[in-house]
């Protein structure tokens, strides 16, 4: 008999030998459970969280020491705020998501803390304190974001119900996207109409839309993957989908083009489309979707370059950044070049926190926070930060590998990819790998909407990872 080859999920044992195999399997499961001992997982998380607090706290103190040669309580208060808030999420996880991933929260905490440190550093350079200081607002937003994340993780005990609300998610995403175009509340900042303003508050709803979109895509693709996988004609060696299945991708593409044209926001447009493309590819395994997607991007890109002035200027500022005429032009490459100068000044090890001049570059605490960190922490610091992002993204991808069902897998990969792609678009833009587009750097950049959206992604990833029970090791 070849009992060893019996399928894992075979029916209950019918003889002694089979019983033996089942017992063997139970032992293996038991070992796995021990490795994934929830208490150990949460303790590991707490340990890593403490490391993250130390990193963030030291960065905040060093910023003050470097820039002002003094130490007072303010940076410690910032660090304590971050500590209390993230500890609250940690405690919540101990209660409602005991088997959640142990690494995501500490990594996000470290990034959020480094961001606050650099935002505080720019505050010092700008001479602002109190509620004028972006670092104060950032810690407040961190509080709002973490409270919402905690509520989300407590309320959403089973994320699979989200699949049921996929069309609601779509509607919400669409609403969030068109909000900035509404007269009265829409605001145009630096040419991009991606903000809404209510009183003194301004908010980028597009940041939240990406989560709603990821939920919608995951829910929709979960049900549609079989029909989307059916192939039609074969052209040039690639099997293309049936024409009638092209509807959804064209709708998403059209939506992204609308964002590009009406909100003048290249980065968001690329982000949404990239998200959809990757998710449909993961759902169907058909490369033809990628070919179609890349073709649509190329089509949209060429059309945008030919017809939209701001896209042309972006491309120009990317390729000819150091040309004096481009450098001096309105909307030219001044910011790119200053950011690159800052990173160059930082060199391998950086000027030291608080000791550089990152504030020379416009938007040094938001769009340009990566060059600011590169100036003061050097290439070593940039590598460490990119490494943190890579870990964060890989934890999300891991859910995709080990998720118990299609929805979990698709949502995990989608959320991880959206973080990875956003980092690529922002960091690639400021380091001149690709044209610069305005997107926020997840967790680092000053701005409430971005923080809120990314902590919500963390909450979802934690919730998703909690469902990956006994299906692998840490």
């Amino acid at each position, binding site marked *: 008999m070849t009992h060893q080859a019996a399928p894992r999920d075979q029916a209950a044992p019918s003889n002694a030998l089979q019983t033996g195999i089942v017992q063997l399997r139970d032992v293996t499961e038991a070992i796995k459970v021990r490795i994934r001992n929830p208490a150990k997982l949460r303790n590991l998380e707490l340990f890593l969280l403490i490391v993250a607090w130390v990193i963030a706290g030291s960065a905040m103190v060093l910023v003050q020491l470097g820039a002002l040669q003094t130490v007072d309580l303010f940076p410690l208060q910032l660090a304590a705020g971050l500590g209390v808030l993230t500890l609250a999420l940690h405690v919540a996880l101990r209660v409602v998501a005991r088997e959640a991933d142990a690494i995501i929260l500490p990594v996000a905490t470290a990034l959020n803390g480094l961001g606050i440190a650099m935002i505080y550093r720019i505050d010092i350079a700008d001479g602002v304190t109190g509620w004028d200081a972006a670092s104060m607002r950032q810690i407040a937003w961190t509080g709002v974001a973490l409270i919402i994340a905690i509520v989300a993780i407590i309320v959403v005990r089973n994320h699979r119900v989200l699949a049921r609300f996929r069309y609601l998610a779509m509607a919400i995403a669409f609403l969030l996207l068109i909000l900035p175009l509404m007269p009265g509340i829409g605001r145009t900042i630096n040419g991009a109409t991606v903000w809404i303003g209510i009183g003194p508050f301004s908010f980028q709803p597009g940041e939240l839309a990406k989560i709603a979109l990821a939920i919608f895509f995951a829910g929709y693709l979960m049900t549609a993957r079989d029909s989307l996988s059916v192939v039609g004609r074969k052209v040039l060696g690639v099997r293309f989908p049936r024409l009638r299945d092209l509807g959804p991708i064209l709708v998403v593409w059209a939506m992204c083009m609308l964002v590009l044209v009406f909100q003048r926001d290249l980065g968001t447009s690329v982000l949404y489309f990239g998200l959809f493309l990757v998710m449909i*590819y993961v759902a169907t*395994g058909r490369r033809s979707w990628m070919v179609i997607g890349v073709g649509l991007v190329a089509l949209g890109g060429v059309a945008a370059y030919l017809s939209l002035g701001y896209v042309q200027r972006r491309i120009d500022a990317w390729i000819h950044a150091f040309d004096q005429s481009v450098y001096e032009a309105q909307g030219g490459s001044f910011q790119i070049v200053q950011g690159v100068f800052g990173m160059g*000044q930082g060199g391998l090890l950086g000027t030291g926190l608080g000791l550089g001049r990152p504030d*020379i570059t416009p938007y040094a605490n938001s769009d340009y926070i990566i060059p600011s960190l590169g100036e003061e922490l050097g290439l070593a610091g940039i590598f460490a930060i990119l490494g943190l992002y890579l870990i964060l993204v890989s934890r999300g*991808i891991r859910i995709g590998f080990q998720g118990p069902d299609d929805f979990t897998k698709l949502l995990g990969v989608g959320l991880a990819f959206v973080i990875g792609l956003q980092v690529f678009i922002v960091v*690639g833009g400021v380091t001149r*790998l690709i044209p610069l587009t305005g997107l926020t750097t997840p967790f680092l950049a000053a701005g409430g909407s971005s923080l809120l959206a990314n902590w919500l992604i963390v909450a979802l990833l934690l919730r998703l990872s909690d469902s990956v029970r006994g299906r692998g090791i840490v």
Partner: protein
Amino acid sequence: MTDASREQSMRRPIRRVSTLLLIMFVGLFGSSTMIQAVQADALQADPRNTRTLYDSFAVERGSIVVDGVQVALSTPSNDEFEWQREYPMGPLYAHVTGYNSLGQGSRGIEDAMNEELTGTANSQFFDQVLATLTGESPAGSSVELTIDAQAQQAAADALGDRVGAVVALDPDTGDVLAMYSSPTYDPNPFASHSTAAVTEVYDRLLADPQDPLHNRTIEGDQFTPGSVFKVLMLSAALESGQFTLDSEFENPAELQLPQSTHVVRNASRETCGPGETVTLETAFILSCNIPFAQLAQQLGADAIAQQAAAFGYGQTLDIPLRVQASSYPSDLNEPNLMLTGFGQHDVRVTPMQIAMTTAAIANDGTMMQPNMVDRVLAPNLDVISEPEPTILGNPVSAEVAAQVRASMELGVQEGLATNAQIDGVTVGGKTGTAERGEGRSFNLWFTGYGELDDQSVAVAVVVVPDENIVGDTSNVIAAPIGRAVIEAVLNS
């Protein structure tokens, strides 16, 4: 599809997506490495990189010190530049210290000794390494100058509002004891941390017709030496061996130059003393032009040019300020050669060159390299460098130098430089009144030296009056300025 195969079917695309993400991050690692490691130096050298400029301001620049007093110093400022440069003596030392400005470059010692003042000189390499290790920002060295504060003040007071320049040298060491150029300017506005303010003051000074930014002692349009060139002519004559102080020259009241309608006259418009002939010594003391025109004719252009070169003409110097080369013209025809005999035609000199010539005469024919830097002191007061006196050359023999000195001393006692006399001090001197052409005022010169016990000083003074006023001779205007500076040095 079963659950298991479904699971398998999604794994492959997810693996591909993670590979894509990895490639994207490798791209980011690569692009940041390009900027921060590969191109970093080139980016720092880009003239648009204001961070590099700010960094050069951010070090605690060393002081510039004259006689124990800081004439340029850095005090903490509460802005991004961290330090504010100050020049407490203002215009008095402007041409010495110069400035280090935001956007309009630097001048003077601030420029020439920038590496020492910012602590980036090679001699401070180990301090830099140490500072890097300890995390301290490196501070610059202070530079102590050879300038004599009293002599500098005396030069400024004596010259007053007039356009001109004064240089004083220690003949034994080459130490620059005074360097004053008028009109001067206040260097403090150049230390402003606003580029607009710096540009404003720079443009204003640049537009000033009297050109206050230009250090007349060592640079710029230079001056026609006139009769002070006769010190060099007398040296050349005696050094040639063909002439002595008693050599005689024809003594007409007018001399028409060969191949020319140009007539040379003595400054007195008369003959040089009563006789048919005049000795070289008398011609020098009374500063007659006709005998020196004849002397130039007889010596020939080559001999004069050779003597000029021996005194340093044609050579730029870094003391450490850049001294422009003075020049004796080449390819001279006979009338022009004769005009150079009394320092006219295309002879162009800096007051520094004239002072160096006199100093060599005063120092028995040995010419010392002029030098403004006494010591460079590290922040911990270690002496980083202390320039030794260097010999530039021996343009004349000790015997010739002694004869020229005797003639110069007679010139002060009974000749045309009597206003340089100081009781109890051996003073030798030579005045000069150089014509600059039709309708332009004269250059009024005095050069001389004073000796008291074992201390000596050589000076050169030039004054450019607004217009020529009868009786305003170099003995009236320039010689007293020289005397004041000599007195100041010998008193201190």
